[in-house]
């Protein structure tokens, strides 16, 4: 710890200078890291305003001389019979339906595990924690075969149903329920004659709302960003979410004879698919962060 001791000594003699130096050095590191994060996003915004030729000829990080957002957007939404608008719509459908249902299913299960004592409770908990260890991709091939056998591939349900199984969400909601809903409150409602279903929907639900928002956002972002599962389960373009559709366009960039490369369309399409979340993120950050930190902090 030679450096620590040295800076300590300096700190005693020249406290103001040393402090200012540390602030500057620390801030410099933070700024460099922030540039690393922001550079590609900034580039995406700039590049989305450039024409195909200007992408290859103009300075990479400088704004375009002729901004062609309008033309690029028009091409994005009309190319190939207007597939892109379906992908955008599909992504919203997959994410909203999955997040809503996954939140309902996980909240019910978490609440059941937290608030009722039943025979197989320990076994169910073990199952949920154990399944966190199984890499989800190990399931994709058999899932495709099973869904294919019952005609679920290439459907919305086929993509949504597997994503409703969210063991981490159940684990999160069970701990959240245990803290947020006092047993006393449930008992007094029972004395007042409320049924168990009514207690969950009328008494517990308002108390669980913040946890459910976190759960909804984690599932929404996870579904919106998902690629492997829809790639395997979907065959026709008009069911694709944005990630699969854009990667299909990107895979033509390098194919000779695949027609004109779609650089401007892929770039502005990428921007459109991250923009809604990036704009909302400052407001949602604290909910998301709480959910992610949960597994780790619960173990401290």
């Amino acid at each position, binding site marked *: 710890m030679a450096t620590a001791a040295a800076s300590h000594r300096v700190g005693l003699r020249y406290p103001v200078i040393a402090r200012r130096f540390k602030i500057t050095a620390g801030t410099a590191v933070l700024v460099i890291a922030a540039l690393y994060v922001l550079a590609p996003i900034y580039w995406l915004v700039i590049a989305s305003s450039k024409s195909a030729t200007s992408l290859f000829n103009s300075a990479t990080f400088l704004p375009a001389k002729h901004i062609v957002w309008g033309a690029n957007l028009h091409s994005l939404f009309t190319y190939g019979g207007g597939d892109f608008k379906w992908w955008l719509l599909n992504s919203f459908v997959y994410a909203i339906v999955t997040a809503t249902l996954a939140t309902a299913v996980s909240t019910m299960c978490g609440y059941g595990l937290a608030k009722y004592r039943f025979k197989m409770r320990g076994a169910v908990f073990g199952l949920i924690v154990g399944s966190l260890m199984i890499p989800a991709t190990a*399931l994709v091939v058999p899932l495709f075969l099973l869904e294919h056998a019952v005609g679920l591939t290439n459907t919305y349900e086929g993509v949504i149903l597997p994503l409703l199984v969210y063991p981490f969400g159940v684990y999160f909601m069970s701990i959240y329920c245990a803290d947020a809903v006092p047993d006393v409150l449930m008992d007094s409602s029972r004395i007042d004659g409320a049924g168990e279903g009514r207690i969950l929907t009328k008494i517990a639900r308002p108390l669980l709302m913040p946890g459910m928002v976190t759960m909804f956002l984690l599932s929404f972002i996870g579904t919106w960003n998902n690629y492997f599962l829809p790639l395997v389960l979907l065959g026709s373009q008009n069911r694709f979410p944005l990630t699969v559709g854009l990667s299909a366009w990107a895979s033509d960039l390098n194919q000779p004879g695949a027609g004109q490369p779609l650089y401007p369309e892929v770039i502005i399409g990428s921007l459109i698919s991250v923009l809604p979340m990036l704009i909302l993120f400052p407001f949602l950050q604290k909910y998301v962060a709480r959910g992610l930190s949960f597994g780790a902090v619960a173990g401290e």
Partner: protein
Amino acid sequence: MTVPFLALFALFFAGPLIYSIVLSLRSPLTGGFAGLLNYRTVIGNAEFWSGVQRMAYFGAVQVSVMIGLAILLAMFLDSPYCKGKRVFALIYFLPYAVPGVIAAIMWGFLLEPDLNGALSIPSKLGLTSGPISPLDYRLALYAIMLIVTWEFTGYNMTILLTSLTNVPRQALEAAKIDGASELSIAWRIKLPLIRRTVLFIVILSIIGTLQLFNEPVILNDIASIGSSYTPNQIIYNTAFSFGNEQLAAAQSVVLAAITIVATTAFFGLVRRRVMPRSENRAVA
């Protein structure tokens, strides 16, 4: 109330998992029971193991760098010297909202010399014979590391930062009164107190590394880095390009087993070193 979840779990998680094991024991040619035939093929499959080996190297380098960076940033943000903590925390967390596919497209284009003039600067200055092309087969692994680090450093930092805010303030005050510098407080007090969180994010990162798929697939689309770069890509090709579902199932089971062994081995290895003996006994 647990019924809806358990029903879905049985149909879309446990079912496929069991089916995967059953399928892996069947012959790709006849569909009949074939014992461990597919597993023997996996063990002799050099391509599969070179993918696993590549991911082991990837994990050793990338996970260390990423976790180190995440700890460094979280410590800075948690120190009294930091200004604008909230803004930085938000910026670092932003990539979490970007799909891996989009991150790979953005970086893939930025790492193409045709699209990014900055990569030609060294050759114009006479330092290299041609533009730097990070998506060459030789360098592609490091390009993927750059992308994955971009995607997940802030995610890990966010988890660490939440954990750091739970460090008891009295411990920090006491250290300060004793004259400890911020650096030694970070190293000797904060880091030991958040070590379980560090362990948790390292294990998540190991699992994520072994499952790598999106980034190499997209980079292959953009720059032809090869379609059998990671174990998951190989499994995908086996099942859907060659139609050998039985072998793909065996490969999936082996990959899942490797994941479980790697994480438990890491956990066992670190637990003894990270936690002092007295505490181990107290826990037991």
